[in-house]
Structures are given as structure tokens and as C-alpha cells.
């Protein structure tokens, strides 16, 4: 029997807190669909110093777009999404890149996607803000790959520091250390298809529509209008929050992304944009960016 309390504690310390506070994010042991969906039952993260710091940081983060002073603690959906993210990150662990373990990574990723599928979208703008406070920096997660080269060879370390013996006597051995930050959507090598990782990340973003819009200029996964993002911006308050969130991005990139996504939405037809929310968002963004450009000294 899995000790959900211990799992939640490890998940909070290893993934949820770093996702808000920054610093090293250490995914824990794969959690699985069943445990992930059970983590949030009567769960509370408060009472510890780390939890207090996380709460304050969440408020500080969302106050960039909305003046609120209190945020609710993590909900069951937040726990489930965090657990799914943990499993997605775990599935990209290079340790699975062996012939025998590769299927395990695929299974972990498939269960993570199943978990994501079971998470409902936020019902209110307040819930969207609360969920955004946890996952706002999702697309900032990057793995630092270190390549150490010396006079007779080289070696790459994925997400771990190079051992000291390889960097010893750097002058004599002509050691060169190259560190590269690799975004979470572009991790290589991985035991699963990169497209599957992108799809899982897109699924998580779809469950937090404010984060999805706020990171719309990302390279991967590409931003597309979903039912949930359209639902957010179709409300007056949601559109305002979305506009404030994208105001922190490069205006030209935002314009290009929103125009492309809106054009694709029209081309898709069908469910499309029945209320014109995407078009209204785009028009409002154009007006605001033009006004800001005129008033900028």
C-alpha cells in the first residue's frame, strides 16, 4: 500500500515548491494515475516553513496580474497535475534510455496523460488564478546538461553535475566544461517520443488556461486556442487577466502567436470560436499594444 502522505510530502518538496520558488526541481519516484488522483483528498500542505514561503510566493506571483491577498491551498486537481508533471518529468529521465526500461517510461507517460485527462478545467476565474499560481513557471523548467571535454575524450551529463575527478587538473588535462540549459519540451535523449512529452505538457497547460495564455509565445508546445482558454477569455475578468499576463511578453511575438492561433481556430471551424472570444481578445490586444506604444516615452 502506497503511503500517500509520504508521496505528497516528497512531491511538494521536490516539485511543487521548486515550481513556485525556483531552484533545483527533483522529481520523485513515479506516482501513477491512481495515487495521483488520490493525493488531494483531505490533503493540506500548510504548517511548514516551506509551505508558508510557497504561499507567499504564489501571492506575489499572481499579484503581477491581479491584486489579491489570499490564495487557497492546493486543491485535488493541483495535486493531481503536480503528480502528473512529476511523472512526465520522470519519464524523460535518461535512466530509462535502455532497451529494457524504455517501455516503462512509455507506461509512466501514458498513465500521466491519463491522469491529466481526468483533471477538470477550472470552473471560475479564481480557480484559474489559483492553478496558475502553481504552474505559472512550468515552461521555465529546464535541465542543465553538462558536457565535459578533456584531452583524450568527452562526456555529457544530463541533469546532474559532472564528477569532480573529470574536472580535476583543468589546465594540465585541458578540461572544458560546457553547460547547456535544455527546456523541458526539448529534452534529449528521452526514452519516449518527444511528441508524446509535448502532448503531455500541452495537456497540463490546457488544464491551466491562464498559464497557457500567459506563456503563449513558447516554442513548444505551440499555443492553440482550446475550449478552456476560450472559456477563460470569453469572460470579462478572464480576458482582462489574460491581457495583463501577455503584457509581460514580447508584444510582436504575442501578436504573431495570437493571430496565428486565431487563424487556425477559424480554419478548424466546427467548435471554432462561437462567441468570438479569440477575435475579441486579439482586437483588444491590438488596441492596448497600440495605446501602450503611443504613450511610451
Amino acid at each position, binding site marked *: 500500500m502506497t503511503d500517500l502522505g509520504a508521496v505528497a510530502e516528497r512531491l511538494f518538496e521536490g516539485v511543487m515548491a521548486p515550481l513556485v520558488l525556483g531552484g533545483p526541481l527533483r522529481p520523485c519516484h513515479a506516482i501513477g494515475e491512481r495515487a495521483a488522483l488520490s493525493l488531494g483528498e483531505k490533503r493540506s500542505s500548510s504548517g511548514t516553513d516551506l509551505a508558508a514561503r510557497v504561499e*507567499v510566493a504564489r501571492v506575489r506571483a499572481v499579484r503581477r496580474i491581479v491584486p489579491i491577498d489570499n490564495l487557497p491551498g492546493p486543491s485535488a486537481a493541483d495535486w493531481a497535475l503536480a503528480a502528473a508533471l512529476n511523472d512526465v518529468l520522470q519519464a524523460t529521465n535518461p535512466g530509462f534510455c535502455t532497451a529494457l526500461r524504455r517501455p516503462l517510461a512509455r507506461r509512466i507517460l501514458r498513465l500521466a496523460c491519463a491522469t491529466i485527462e481526468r483533471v477538470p478545467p477550472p470552473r471560475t476565474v479564481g480557480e484559474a488564478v489559483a492553478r496558475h499560481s502553481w504552474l505559472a513557471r512550468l515552461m521555465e523548467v529546464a535541465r542543465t546538461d553538462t558536457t565535459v571535454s578533456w584531452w583524450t575524450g568527452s562526456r555529457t551529463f544530463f541533469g546532474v553535475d559532472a564528477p569532480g575527478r573529470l574536472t580535476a587538473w583543468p589546465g594540465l588535462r585541458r578540461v572544458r566544461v560546457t553547460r547547456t540549459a535544455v527546456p523541458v519540451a526539448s529534452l534529449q535523449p528521452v526514452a519516449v517520443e518527444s511528441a508524446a512529452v509535448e502532448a503531455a505538457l500541452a495537456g497540463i497547460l490546457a488544464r491551466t488556461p491562464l498559464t497557457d495564455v500567459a506563456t503563449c509565445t513558447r516554442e513548444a508546445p505551440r499555443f492553440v486556442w482550446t475550449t478552456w482558454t476560450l472559456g477563460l477569455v470569453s469572460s470579462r475578468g478572464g480576458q482582462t487577466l489574460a491581457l495583463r499576463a501577455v503584457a509581460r511578453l514580447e508584444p510582436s511575438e504575442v501578436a504573431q502567436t495570437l493571430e496565428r492561433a486565431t487563424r487556425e481556430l477559424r480554419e478548424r471551424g466546427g467548435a471554432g470560436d462561437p462567441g468570438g472570444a479569440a477575435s475579441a481578445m486579439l482586437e483588444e490586444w491590438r488596441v492596448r499594444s497600440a495605446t501602450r506604444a503611443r504613450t511610451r516615452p
Partner: protein
Amino acid sequence: MGEALLERIALHQTRLNTPGLGLDSKGVALGAKGLLLLPSVDRLVALLAAYTRERSLEDLLPALAIHLAHSKLGTREVVVEFPAESSDRMDRMADVARLVGGFAFTGTSRHFVQYRDAAAPFGYDATDLLSTDAQLALYHGRFSQTYDLERPIDLRSLLIRIMPRLEPGTRSLAGPRIVVVEPGLGGTLVSYLLRSGVDGVVCMVEWPPANAFDDAPVRRWILRLPSFPPRMGSLLHETPGLTSFVPTATGVAVEAGYRHPIELQACPVFGGGGLVLLRGGGAEPWVVDHLPMLAPLRAFARVGFATTPGEPPVGASVGGGEILRVPLRVVASGRPWRNVTATWIASEQLPLLRRLAYALPHEIVTRALVAITPRGAFLRSPAGIEGFPGVFYVEVHPDLFVPAGHDVTPSVSSEALAKAVGAPATHVTFIGPDSRVVAIERTAFAPLEAALVEAAPWDALVAEQIAAALDEPIELKVTTIGLLPMRGVEPIPEGG
């Protein structure tokens, strides 16, 4: 017209045929009266105009009589009778009458003979008197004629009926003015004159309705101004509803831009508490039989009531200089605003300042100093204070402020004002619009940016950590997957 019945009087002649005719000390034939025969009324006007140019009618008026007379031939002429008194007066009257085409006679009751001329230095005498019942028998060298008096001509009425001539130059004359103002403009003009420091008196005059269709009297303001600034000339002379008159004599004035043909100052027929306003352009004159009581313009000044009826201290000893001192007053001024570097925000307006704080530019916030007092907040900013609400102040002297758009009276220099206020050098002094003086210690002014920001509601150490954390990158660390990476990884059971 009968034939001439006159003969020249010789030197030392003592007997005269004409009754009432005698010789004065110079030997000139002279009756008790003088008489001028003028062919028409306009000649009469010309005579009056010419005579009054240098002489006053004052000595003639008591016995002056002007009549319209007609002869047996049916001609109507004007007869002017006056006391002859002396040959000097008669000479002057005869000269003027000759100038205007009239004839001069002298006599006592009914028979008047031609007054002397160059041909008869001692005058004339009638050889044969006309036997007639006519009221006047005039004997002239060229005619003898009897006249009956038809009706008298009142000099005052004549002067009122004469239309003034156009003469625009009288508008630019300095001096007193009488201004008749239509009712709708009266209050406004009085206020304007008060503000401009023009002194004068004012009354309201009523005339009967102009016709039977009007049932209300016609009312107009009449202002008497001893003088007025030249800049007001256009206002008083050209504003519709305002009619300006130049007083020409006691009780009479002529509209500015016109001049009466007769020197009215030489005709003391007006007065008696009334006022005659002669209008140009053919308009009927305004005649006020009895002028109402005139009130000074100052009576219409806005009045204020002291909140506490303070009695001046009785028996307090004062120095010589104290006698001259007057309270400081702050009055509105039209001067442009310069050096506006302070503002006073009343306590009830402080919420507005708090709301504006979010919109104020960085430069304004960093440069402004604020002092919070029980009467509100005082802000100073050497770069200008226009971004703030409240009552703006101008720095007229180092650390001495007066409200923008206002002047301090008596109009003294800023140095004298600072000395009079007497605030210590360590204080910043504000003279309010209500003339109250407030002095604030200079050290009470603190940077506005320090006063605006509230204290953070959480621990400073934590806040620093959080602030740093929000910018710290998230680094994905690869952990070991363990020997049993799938332990506990289970899907939701079917139907779960």
C-alpha cells in the same frame, strides 16, 4: 409796416417824445426795458448761442421774457424783453441781435424806439407816436409796427427741445459722467465699477409708462461718476443699454458724442433737484423732475459677517506705528501664475491624493515633500506642483507662500510681507485665501515617496527570500529511478 417816425437825438437834447424814454448819464436814450425783435425761433437760438458763449444769462433771467408776437400783417416774430439797466448791456444785446438779423429797441411799457447805432450815437426818438391798442409799438428807422403778444416761450422748455449737435470729440473728454443704465445691466455694471475701484453714486429713476399699453413704470439706473478710467470709455459709451451723458450744468447733461448749441452753463434754468438728460440722434430727452436719493456705489459691495463679533480691546496701549497697521487681506488677482511650487490638500481631500498616488509620475513623487498637519497636507515641489490636487500656492519669498491667483493687500514687497508675518526662519509660512497664516516647521516636510508607501505586511526576511525566489531559475535535476521504477504506479481500476 408804417413809414419811419424816428429822429436822431442830438447832443444835449433833453426833451423826448416817446413815453418812458430817458437819457442815461452818457446822454444815450434808454428806457427801462430792452427789446429784441427776431424774425424766427432759430434766430432766437442763434442769439442765445452767441450771447452765452461769453456771457451768462443769470443777470437777465429774473426779468427775461420771450414771446411769440404777430403783427397786423400776420407775420410771427420773436420778441425778447429784458431789463435795459444800462447802455453797456443794451450795446451788447444790440450787437448780438444785429449779428443774428434782429433789431434792438428800448422803451418802458408799450412804445419802443430803435436803440442807438453808429448813425445815431445817442439813439432815436419817435416824432409821432402810433395811436394803437396793440401791446407793442416798435419804432425803427425803416419801419414802425405794432405787435400783439401771442404766447410766451419758456426758455427752459426751449433749451430742452433743442436737439444737440453731433460732436464725437466729447466722448473722449475726461471728467464726470452720468450713465443711464437699463435695469438688466445695472447690477452688473455696479459690481464691475466696484471691482475696478470706480467711485460714484447711484439711484433708480422711474418714468410713467410710455403709452397706454404699458402698465408698469419704466425704470432705469442713473449712475453719477466723478471720473472713470480711460479704458472704460468704450464700455460706457458703446455698450447697448448704457447711455453716457456729460454734465454741462447743474441739473442738465448732454449725451456723450453730442453738444448742445447753447452754452447751458450760462442758462441757470435747470436744477431744483431735477435732472434733464438731453439725448442726441433726435431722441426725446429724459427729464427727471425730482432726482431720488443717491446712494454710494460702495453700498452695493458684497458684505461679509464676522463669525465672532469681536470687540476691539479698549484701553490697550498702542505704539505710534500700531495706529497705521491694517489687517492683511488676500484678494483675487488676474496676474499669471508663476513659481507655483506648493499645494494645500484639505483633510477631506486626502483620499483623493492617495488614489492619485498610483498615477503620479516617478519624477513628481521623488521630488515632492509633504507635511501632514491637522489642517491637511502641505506639499512642496520645486519642479512644480501641478500634478497634485488642492489649493496651489506661489512662493513669493523664500519659505513664504500665498495662494496662486491671489495678491496680498496692502500691496507691499515680499520682504516687507515676510517681516510682517514674522515667522521664524525655521518655518515655512502659508498665507491662506482666508488670510489666515499657517507656519510649519521645515523639518516637518518629508519626502512624499517615503510617506506614500505602506509598510509591508509580512516579515522582511521572508520577503527578500521570496523576491529572490521569483527570479531564481528552475533547474530540473535528474534523480535515480531506482530498481523498481514502476512500484506503486497503477492506473485507475476499471469502473473506479
